[in-house]
């Protein structure tokens, strides 16, 4: 193991790690925002409301993220309408393609988590809210969603870790995030073991701090208190 090389390239790897963090942070937050209506619609009583989120979730969970990335980054160029459209400067840029794809990908998973959480809210609590005279919307926003957030939070933290690992795929569309940066450095130094090892350590470190952070968030939201039976 050539430690000098690792130390020499550590700042560049840290730059890559910053881009990784940026991609993941934007994707999981934007994905969450997109997932809230999707998840609520997915848990609907009416089949015609359920149908679209069902298809969306099925497609995004059934195909690899790599295919989805390529569909957005390379696939969109096939259509002249898009190439002449106002969104082309964004769809041409690998950064925005990665963000769009990762957001849509993770939204499908988070929506499914949210559906599970909504359905896990004890029915008695919903009935109690209705008996107190709350409207359906009020019940949703004051009773069901706050409960569902606490039920779904552990699964959401898992999803964030999975997205951290999935962000490595952005390197395939030329983005220089942690994995992409490592591959660039290796092309220069021909030391794959050392550099990939260092990149792996970065991922482990980020995952470690994310797990810690979510544990604090769970304590702050008092998740364990709501789970006492």
């Amino acid at each position: 193991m050539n430690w000098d090389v690792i130390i020499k390239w550590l700042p560049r790897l840290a730059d890559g790690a910053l881009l990784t963090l940026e991609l993941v942070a934007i994707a999981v937050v934007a994905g969450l925002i997109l997932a809230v209506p999707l998840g609520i619609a997915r848990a609907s009583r009416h089949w015609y409301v359920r149908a679209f989120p069902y298809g969306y979730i099925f497609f995004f969970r059934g195909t690899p993220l790599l295919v989805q990335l390529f569909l957005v980054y390379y696939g969109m160029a096939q259509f002249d309408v898009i190439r002449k459209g106002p969104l082309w400067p964004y769809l041409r840029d690998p950064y925005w393609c990665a963000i769009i794809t990762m957001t849509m990908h993770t939204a499908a998973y988070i929506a499914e988590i949210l559906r599970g959480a909504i359905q896990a809210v004890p029915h008695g609590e919903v009935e109690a809210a209705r008996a107190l005279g709350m409207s359906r919307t009020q019940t949703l926003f004051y009773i069901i969603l706050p409960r569902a957030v606490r039920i779904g939070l552990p699964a959401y933290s898992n999803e964030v870790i999975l997205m951290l690992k999935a962000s490595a795929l952005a390197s395939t569309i030329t983005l220089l995030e942690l994995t992409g940066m490592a591959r660039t450095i290796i092309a220069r130094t021909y030391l794959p073991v050392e550099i990939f090892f260092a990149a792996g350590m970065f991922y482990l470190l980020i995952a470690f701090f994310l797990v810690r952070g979510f544990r604090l968030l769970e304590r702050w939201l008092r998740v364990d208190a709501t789970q006492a039976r």
Partner: protein
Amino acid sequence: MTLDLYGFGPALAAGTFMTIKLALSALSLGLVLGLLGALAKTSPYKPLQWLGGSYSTIVRGVPELLWVLLIYFGTVNLMRSLADLLGVESLELNAFAAGTIALGLCFGAYATEVFRGAILAIPRGHREAGLALGLSKGRIFWRLIMPQMWRVALPGLGNLFMILMKDTALVSVIGLEEIMRRSQIAVTASKQPFTFYMVAAFIYLGLTILAMIGMHYLEKRASRGFVRSTT
């Protein structure tokens, strides 16, 4: 668009076959690794527990793509010294072997947790009953624990297998000619990226559906004798 996809239909079919082959071989390796990891984690010996624990933690914390790249590009020197040792002209890991090892390693790390949960779900009394009957440790594991463990572990393993099948796309990065690589080649020739990546997406969807049907059948078979309670 015709059904033969500008003449790339057979190539994509061959790619699909390669993807299935890769998924199944990674599954076999991963199941063995997962079983070993779970046995290590549930063993009474501290060093083994530590080994199993660090295997599953470290492998799960690093992206699958990084494992694929590390094992493909990182083993070149190792293989060269191994070739020197054996006195062979040259020895290298091809993309298929590297992909199998990398994906099997990742599958095994997750499967460790699934198997561990399944082992812990078997009542302690069953093991004690085996001991009382004078069965050896190995026999208790193979004849008592394993058959019952499968039933508990199957749903979790099914989920992992679907994830594994989608992860096979990553091996295209090191040039294995599976669905994604074949689609890329087709795109280069035909300049129809959306069409071909969409076809690839639908092939993966089809494989996922097939795996779901297979899992349903296996779960039904594994829970023979266990009547699911209905009201």
